[in-house]
Structure formats: C-alpha cells, structure tokens
C-alpha cells in the first residue's frame, strides 16, 4: 500500500515537471513558407523614406559640390585680378 502511494507521488511529480517543461517551450514556428499577410507589421521596413533619402543625398552632394566649385573659381578670379594689378604696378615702377 505504502509502495503504491510512493509510486503515485512520483508519477504526480514527474507529471508536474513535464507540464512545466512543456509550458516553458517557445511556440514552434510553422513549417514551410509563411504568407506576407501574416507577418507582423513592425517587421516591414517602408521603402519610401529610404528612396527619398537616397535621392536627397544625391542632389545635396551635386549642388553642394557645384556651389563649392563656383566659390573657389570666384576666389581664384579675385586672386588673379589682384596679382595682375600688383604685377602691372610693379612693371610701371
């Protein structure tokens, strides 16, 4: 009788352990391909901001670079006229 009770307690403990272990298992993903409609929203990355950023970067770099060339040419023209003026003055003397 006592042996039977011990066996029943052991079985109950093992059962509790098994249920706890099963409860802690993460949900298994379904096998095979998953349709896009069932994918959670936060996993999707919107393309429009990336495309807008890419084209904005290109235009900013183009106009920034053109502006920098224009500025440097204007400075070089000033230097050229300045040195030409000084050279003409030196030649007169």
């Amino acid at each position, binding site marked *: 009788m006592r042996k039977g009770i011990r066996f029943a307690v052991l079985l109950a403990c093992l059962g509790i352990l098994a249920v706890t272990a099963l409860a802690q298992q993460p949900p298994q993903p379904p096998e095979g391909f998953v349709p896009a409609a069932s994918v959670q929203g936060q996993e999707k*990355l919107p*393309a*429009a901001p*990336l*495309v807008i*950023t*890419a*084209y904005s*970067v*290109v235009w900013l*770099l*183009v106009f920034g*670079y*053109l502006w920098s*060339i224009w500025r*440097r*040419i204007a400075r*070089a*023209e000033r*230097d*050229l006229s300045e*040195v*030409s003026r*000084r*050279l003409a003055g*030196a030649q007169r003397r």
Partner: protein
Amino acid sequence: MRTQSVKKLFVPLLILTAAMFAYAPVAIQNAPYESTMGLVQKIFYFHVPSWFVMFSAAGVCGIGGAVYLFTGRKEADRFALAAAELAVVFGLMGLITGPLWGRKAWGVWWQWDARLTSALVMWLVFVAYLLLRKYGGVGSEKLSAVLALFGMANVPFVYLSVNLWRTVHPKTSVVMTLQPDMGRPFLLCSLAFMALFVLVLAARVRLENMRAKVDELYLSLED
C-alpha cells in the same frame, strides 16, 4: 582655340544636362516596380550612374597621373587632381545610396563582401590622393600620380568582383538584361550623369588652371 571650343560646347551641354535631370524623376516614376524589391529598387537609377561617373573619374585620374609621370606635363596633373575630386564626390554618392537600398533589399546596411569592400577601398584610395595633394607638400604630385594609377587599376577589379566572387550585390548582367521600360530611364540617367561629369570636370580643370596662373604670376612678381 581649344578653350574657345570648350566654351562653345559648355552652354549647350549644360542646357541638355539640366533638361535630362529635369525629366529624370518623371522617367524614374514611370518605370515599373521590380518584382521582388519593389519601390526601393528605384534607387538603382541614380546609384549605378554615380558609380559609372566614379569609374570614369578614376580612369581620367589614372591616365592623367600616368601622362604626368612619363611626360611631366602639368596639364595632365591638373586633370588628374580635378578627376580625383570627382571620383570622391560621386563615389560617396554610391556609397551612401547603396546601403540605403541594401537595408531594404538585404536587411542590412553593409556587408563586408568582395564588391562593397573593394568599392570602399577604391574610394579610400582617391580620398588618400586628395589628402596627399593637400598635405603632402612639394613633390607630392609624383607620389599621388602613382596612387592614381593604383586607383585606376582597381576599377576592373571592383566592376567584375560580383561575377568573380559570391556576393549579395546584383551581378553586372542586370544592366544588360534590363527590360526596355527600366532600360530607358536608366539610359537617360546614365547619360545625364556622364554629361554632368564632363561639365563639372571642365569647371574643375578651369579652377586648377586659374590657380596655376595665379601661382605663376606671384612667382614672376617676386622675381
């Protein structure tokens, strides 16, 4: 005589380039979506032409460097310097637009694969060229000319890397196999970028010529 013909061509080419860039957004918008990547694939229409310009600039820089090394012609060195700057600017465009596309298409901003790494190394070579010219002092022209040759030698390696190694990047064949609806806007953008390259290179070479003239006049003033 040559300067006059460049001046005559500059304005018509400028108008043509502006017209092509003005129409480019319409052409890109009308191009169909790619089946797997969707909207983000439209970055392609500016991303690839920016690399075309980068490769062309690397070629001009390398040839200019070689001519300067073997003949000592200063004009060639000025062309090389102007082209190196363009290589850095247009390479930067490609290096920024590429990861923006890759983030959506591959799920990551960057991969250290053969194409992306070699492209970055090539860009860094031209950054090194400019740094050497700015801070290298007297005699840095010859060393930078060698660097330009090394940068130019990288071009076929970078271009063919996608065919030679397994990378996440699309192969070179995608350009040749484009459907006409995608091919036409791509051709328009490529021509617009190449025309822009010619215009900006001409302006940048003019700047170098002016600087050389200023230096020459200062030297004669000191004498």
